[in-house]
């Protein structure tokens, strides 16, 4: 695609701007800011990726993945402000998920250990893990608050914190995993995944694009399960003190 052709795609920015102005939606400024930010951020990432791919240095790969984890942790931890030490717990979860998935991919020789594979796949894994963390933390804090009487009931009958919070924990883990599972049920029927569509547009063989997409989808299933379960089991003990009392947030 030439830069002239790319500039024509700004028509798709012009349409919402005109609609916003016509219907007094007041979204012109936000739309412009979003457009400019996406152009700058993506171009910057493009040049950084070009540099990293060409250098193929492990240090740059490590730095890129670290940056992704730091940004994702910063974003996700806001939803779990009530949980003590949430930054460390989210960061530990993301690091674990990244190490686990890359170890399997590289260890079993599924993908080569090059920047071209590690960085995009890490981006998808860490991004998905971040969304999962946000979904989990949102639901878990709400569950704990709503079902405080159930928690107190179990504690007052001599149950442990783990027993007292078990139902809320399971509900939150399930709730955060369901969107990933559900979206995979309709994939190919309702929507074509972005990565696969991108490969096909770029001229790749559709079957090869599907194979990579399947790899990513299965990877995201593991990411979903490991993220919510690990974050859940790291988070719940901080809701209680040594005397097995539910601490007020």
């Amino acid at each position: 695609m030439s830069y002239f052709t790319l500039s024509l795609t700004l028509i798709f920015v012009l349409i919402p701007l005109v609609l916003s102005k016509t219907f007094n939606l007041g979204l012109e400024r936000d739309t412009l800011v979003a457009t400019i930010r996406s152009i700058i951020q993506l171009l910057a990432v493009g040049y950084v990726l070009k540099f990293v791919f060409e250098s193929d240095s492990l240090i740059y790969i490590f730095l890129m993945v670290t940056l992704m984890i730091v940004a994702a942790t910063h974003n996700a931890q806001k939803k779990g402000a009530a949980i003590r030490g949430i930054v460390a717990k989210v960061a530990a979860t993301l690091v674990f998920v990244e190490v686990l998935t890359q170890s399997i991919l590289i260890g079993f020789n599924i993908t080569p250990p090059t920047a071209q594979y590690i960085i995009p796949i890490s981006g998808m894994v860490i991004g998905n893990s971040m969304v999962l963390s946000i979904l989990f933390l949102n639901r878990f804090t709400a569950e704990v608050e709503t079902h405080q009487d159930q928690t107190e009931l179990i504690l007052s009958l001599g149950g442990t914190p783990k027993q007292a919070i078990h139902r809320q924990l399971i509900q939150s883990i399930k709730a955060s995993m369901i969107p990933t599972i559900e979206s995979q049920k309709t994939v190919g029927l309702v929507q074509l995944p972005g990565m696969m569509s991108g490969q096909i547009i770029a001229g790749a063989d559709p079957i090869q694009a599907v194979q990579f997409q399947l790899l990513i989808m299965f990877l995201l299933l593991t990411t979903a399960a490991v993220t919510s379960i690990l974050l859940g089991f790291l988070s719940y003990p901080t809701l209680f003190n040594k005397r097995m009392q539910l601490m007020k947030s």
Partner: protein
Amino acid sequence: MSIQYKPAVHFNHVNYSAGDTHILKEITGSFPEGKIITLVGPSGAGKTTLLKLCNGLLSPDTGEIYVKDKPIDNIEPVELRRLVGMALQSAPMISGTVYDNLNLPLELQGKKLPEQDALAWLHDVGLEEQLISRNVKDLSGGQRQKVSIARTLVNKPEVLLLDEITSSLDRTSLKEIEELIVKINRKYGTTIIWITHNLQQAMEIGDYTWVMMAGEVIETGESELLVNPANDKVKRFVRGEAG
């Protein structure tokens, strides 16, 4: 109150705050073993907080609490909560049947309540045996409270804490629960500490009464104290002029 009985629970200069709110102030006193003690006072007096301190759902900021003469901090939380059982005001149930709820205290210990024992507990609290397999969603308010009490009794507590368990019941259920409380006390010798807003109930059922206001124990004594209180604030409360 001059107590000639061994204390089941003893408070010594206990203070408790939540944030900036001083909920309990310098609470000192004993709940005599094997007796029914009613806690009365206006809403926000700190009665529920006091109950939660008795079974370690909360810990005091300062002061000491003794259960059966042992400092409460020296008793493992799980052991303490089985020794000092609590029936909560809302009678929360786990989803499932009446049996599932009666089995809960043992399930938490990795054990199973034999069905015969579950039926015996139902009988004990005056519920029909066929309720054993009923879904708890289909129980009346009175039945839920009885199941809640039976469930607490499965742990065979020596002290039973009751938090306004009759506040939302009709007259018939209320009378049944009152009789049940007396029966538990007489049959098992269980010490019962009971929060109630019903002063008539406090006088009729309680052996002793604590009157609490704004986080302080204002007057204690045999429950007849409510007929003719010594303290002016309590007099106004009994006449319905406070709280």
